């Protein structure tokens, strides 16, 4: 043990090793192949949205997860980045400046960073509630300004531009969604890599230290305030990049990019995905975008489900989706993952039935109350039935109650199995 570590310490480790480059290679291949698997324009539109959200969520997690700063107004940095990019787009179009589109997000990043520089200079003095409240106040102020300062924000209509302004870049004119997809994918990889590397730098490590114990960090020579400030500025930069990509993708930026709802959404996304791990926000962004665009086509109650999911996550899985996955690294290491399948199925299948039953009951009640008179037919889980008869509701309620009861009964067994799986073979902790 000591031997190998010391050997490693003596020589400078190679810049890229296969093991640490692997996730990035996989990600690159994955991003390149996605449009081949899902070639429809709408799928690409959704993926573009997802990729932009991922960048923003990662930037947000630089604050929340890595720096321990809870912001209720981070959308403004993305929004301002977006507005700047649209203005640059229009300026370039009007004055014919030879500025290739792919570098445009850089402007968003720089202005996002500039704003973060100003706000951060006073907001990062304290962490915790003071920071959260200042972020809320500044967020509300800038969002409110967006309808007052029409010259820059364009009122509630926002500012729109045309991304196809300039000369083609290597023959690409960015007419089609697919061209934009690859542009966004490039920036996604680049920003994610940079943000990952940032977390490995001295300042990135100290951000974690300040999050865990600001006082101790001060006694190690670091000013907690400046550590927070630098993280905040970096986060503003990447949020601005996301804003720039948003501007390119949608060619319009509006007040909704700045407002409190948007700031709240990114908090929700990041937390759902998991703040404790670098890849958490990525999962959160993917899951949320799918829920928002796909689930909302299936049910009007999607926001209710989302709210419930969020509250349940905070209460029972504070590590989010990523935390849930990483809880299984130890069993995997011990080769005991297989032993969990049985107990999991015993608990989670009834649990899933319970959840679906509950959702079905809600949907039936909702249909009963809001559907047109005489329109008593509804379709749920590929079954069509009469929402006004008692039987379906009864089945749903029974499924819900029964499912939860069974799940609750099996839960101790699952906990036990999980505990056992976390104990190395033939030994105890």
């Amino acid at each position, binding site marked *: *043990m*000591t031997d190998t*570590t*010391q050997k*490693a*310490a*003596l*020589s*400078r*480790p190679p*810049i890229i090793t296969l093991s640490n480059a692997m996730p990035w290679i996989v990600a690159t291949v994955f991003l390149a192949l996605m449009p081949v698997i899902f070639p429809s324009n709408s799928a690409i539109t959704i993926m573009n949205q997802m990729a932009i959200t991922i960048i923003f969520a990662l930037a947000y997690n630089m604050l929340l997860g890595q720096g321990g700063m809870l912001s209720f107004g981070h959308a403004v940095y993305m929004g301002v980045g977006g507005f700047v990019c649209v203005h640059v787009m229009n300026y370039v179009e009007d004055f014919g400046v030879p500025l290739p589109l792919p570098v445009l997000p850089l402007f968003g990043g720089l202005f996002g960073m500039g704003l973060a520089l100003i706000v951060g200079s006073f907001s990062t003095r304290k962490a915790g509630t003071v920071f959260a409240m200042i972020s809320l106040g500044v967020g509300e102020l800038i969002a409110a300004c967006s309808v007052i300062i029409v010259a820059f924000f364009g009122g509630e209509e926002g500012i729109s531009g045309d991304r196809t302004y300039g000369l083609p870049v290597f023959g690409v004119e960015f007419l089609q969604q697919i061209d934009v997809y690859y542009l966004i994918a490039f920036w996604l990889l680049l920003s994610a890599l940079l943000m990952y*590397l*940032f977390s*490995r*730098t*001295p*300042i*990135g*490590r*100290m951000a*974690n*230290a300040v999050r*865990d*114990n600001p*006082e*101790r*960090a*001060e*006694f*190690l*020579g*670091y*000013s*907690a305030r*400046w*550590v927070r400030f*630098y993280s905040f500025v*970096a986060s503003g930069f990447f949020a601005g990049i996301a804003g720039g990509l948003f501007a390119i993708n949608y060619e319009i930026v509006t007040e909704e990019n700045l407002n409190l709802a948007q700031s709240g959404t990114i908090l929700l996304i990041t937390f759902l995905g998991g703040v404790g791990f670098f890849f958490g926000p990525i999962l959160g962004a993917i899951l949320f975008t799918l829920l928002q665009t796909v689930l909302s086509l299936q049910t009007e109650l999607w926001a209710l489900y989302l709210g419930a999911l969020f509250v349940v996550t905070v209460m029972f899985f504070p590590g989010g989706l990523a935390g849930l996955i990483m809880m299984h690294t130890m069993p995997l290491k011990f080769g005991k993952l297989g032993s969990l399948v049985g107990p999991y199925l015993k608990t989670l299948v009834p649990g899933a039935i319970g959840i679906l039953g509950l959702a079905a009951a809600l949907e039936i009640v909702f249909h009963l109350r809001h559907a047109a008179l005489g329109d008593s037919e509804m379709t749920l889980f590929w079954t069509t039935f009469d929402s006004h008869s008692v039987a379906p509701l009864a089945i749903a309620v029974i499924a819900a109650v029964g499912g939860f009861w069974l799940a609750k009964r099996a839960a101790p067994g699952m906990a036990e199995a999980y505990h056992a799986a976390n104990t190395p073979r033939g030994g105890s902790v």
Partner: protein
Amino acid sequence: MNSATTQGKAALELDGLRKSFGKTEIIRGVDLSIGDGERHAIIGPNGAGKSTLFNLITGRFPSTSGKVRLNGQDLAGLAPFQINRMGLSRSFQITNIFPKMTVFENVRCSLLWARGYKYSFWHMVSRAPDLTEAAEAILEQINLTERRDLPAGVLSYAEQRALEIGITMAGGANVIMLDEPTAGMSHSETDYIVDLIRKVTEGKTLIMVEHDMGVVFGLADRISVLVYGEIIATGRPEEVRANPKVQEAYLGAALEAEH
């Protein structure tokens, strides 16, 4: 070694230091000079203001009046991180580490500033051999190499205290302040920590607050006795032991405690 006295260059000087919380004066004019390379212990009954004195020196609390000088420089109005950068490092009475980070990272973080990485965002910590090497060396010194990759929060109490001492001295500060390093430890653990302290503070100035008289008399070159915010005696261990005022203060406190 016991010959070290105030004659040499002073590492830390306190000059008429006072601190009040509201109307209560906790520190009532402390004058003290601690020489370079000296091992100095501050003892005193409960509530004498030992920890407050520590907090005043390290900039955790502002003092009401008086001066603190580190290697001749005034520390008035400086923040903890600035004082640290001038070469003073401390541990805490209550274990104060980064519980969610690994043992190795705890040590590495404490090296960063001293090694000149400051607020760098262009270095990769994992690609800095000097950092890794130094951190490994410290882990070796505090006997935590085996625990390298565990989250610091899961270590045993004694191990956490050892880690804290490792963090405190990792930055290479030459004035080290330890606040009750053996509090709440068993005999064997205490012996282990005392050995550790002796080993890692070799050639540095050490100031510590301690209750365990065995530890104090075994380690310290000189001892100061703080009672009700005043130093009533300073000197070599045997001098202090013989001092009637000290005897009285300790006996008095013991009697009070019985009531």
